[in-house]
């Protein structure tokens, strides 16, 4: 009976230690590294490509470009696969004005990430 009591007392600590050490070292936090066009930049004429890239794989769930005429149709949306770079193009040339790229995604460490990038077309 005493042995059972001792086992019950140490079980939580033993299980916690086991889980702590056994969890794979796979989770890494992803950070956005850059974008195309760059944040805050001004480009002459409509950009052919709109891209964002990260230092670790990210599962993008939303990638939305909006401008003076509302949401911009894109040739390709994010596929929710883990990737370090996502690239797409506007379905039609962008007119002059200020544009916002809004993206959201899930990093491998389970952290929900989001950001907004601005650029101007002249």
């Amino acid at each position, binding site marked *: 009976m005493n042995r059972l009591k001792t086992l019950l007392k140490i079980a939580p600590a033993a299980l916690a230690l086991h889980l*702590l050490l056994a969890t794979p070292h796979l989770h890494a936090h992803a950070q956005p590294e850059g974008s195309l066009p760059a944040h805050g930049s001004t480009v002459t004429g409509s950009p052919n490509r709109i891209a964002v890239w990260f230092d670790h794989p990210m599962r993008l769930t939303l990638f939305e470009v909006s401008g003076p005429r509302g949401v911009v149709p894109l040739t390709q949306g994010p596929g929710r696969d883990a990737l370090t770079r996502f690239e797409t193009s506007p379905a039609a040339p962008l007119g002059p004005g200020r544009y916002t790229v809004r993206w959201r995604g899930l990093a491998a*460490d389970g952290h929900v990430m989001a950001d907004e990038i601005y650029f101007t077309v002249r």
Partner: protein
Amino acid sequence: MSTALSLLQPLLELLAQTDGWTWLRVLVAAAFYACALVAVGGVLFGQVFAHPTGLHRAAGLRPLVPVAAGLALALLLLQWPLQAGFLGGGTWAAAFDPGLLALVFDGATGQRLLLAGSGLLLLQAFWIVSGRWRGPAAAASLLGAALVLLAFTLVGHSTGAPRALLAVLLLLHLGAVAFWIGALIPLYRISGPPQLGEPAAHVLQRFGLVAAPVVAGLIVAGLWLAWRLLEGWSPLLHSAYGLVLLLKLAVLGLLLALAGLNRWLLVPALVAHAPRARQRLRASIGCEMLLVALILLLTAFLTTTTSP
């Protein structure tokens, strides 16, 4: 003035980007932290202080721990569709999109949900902790508390390298936080009725003695964790994460001042039967609860909206 504004610029930009859906996630996360830590801390308080049966009852641990754990479980489950909804652009349709729900569940968030959920269910054993099954129920509650704390280490920046060190630091920090937060409601309750007399005064005095090294550990582990995550002290003033962290530390400073007031003035006054000592101590513990709520809100904002 302009220097102060430029220092606050990253925080102002972040606040401008924070939408209603994100605020909802922050509030739910803060409420989850509060309920989970009250439940875990209640178990620790019961183990360390509330052995006399009368005091255990007066501290109100039996309804407190399982009810807080039940609320935490509901809030934990609510976080799942809220995350899916955010990922899909902040709509209720996205919140219940099977693909997004599966995406959130698949990985670290799912592991955290399962581990914390199991721990919170095990904490329901606290209903029978003073009956015939006292031993196994106490062991199940301790296991539940350990699982809940461990679940906190499965998501976020603390999962980066060196993983084991960051996870141990976070576990130490959270264990100490739970010990402190979980003691506030029981201490508030036992400092009320004068008939509890000497046993209650003894627990209040002992808490002051035990809490000192625990709080010191909390601060050391927290600062070390912040230094590892920020990779230095410079981002404290130059990032939204650092600025919110500074705000959190400022509120923690106020909380420490109140804790010191309790330990060195108000509890000795209560032990010496000074007039109105009970009311003053209860008011001070009430203020501590408000400051803790503010710290948890800032922590939830920190973990939901920013990264170091």
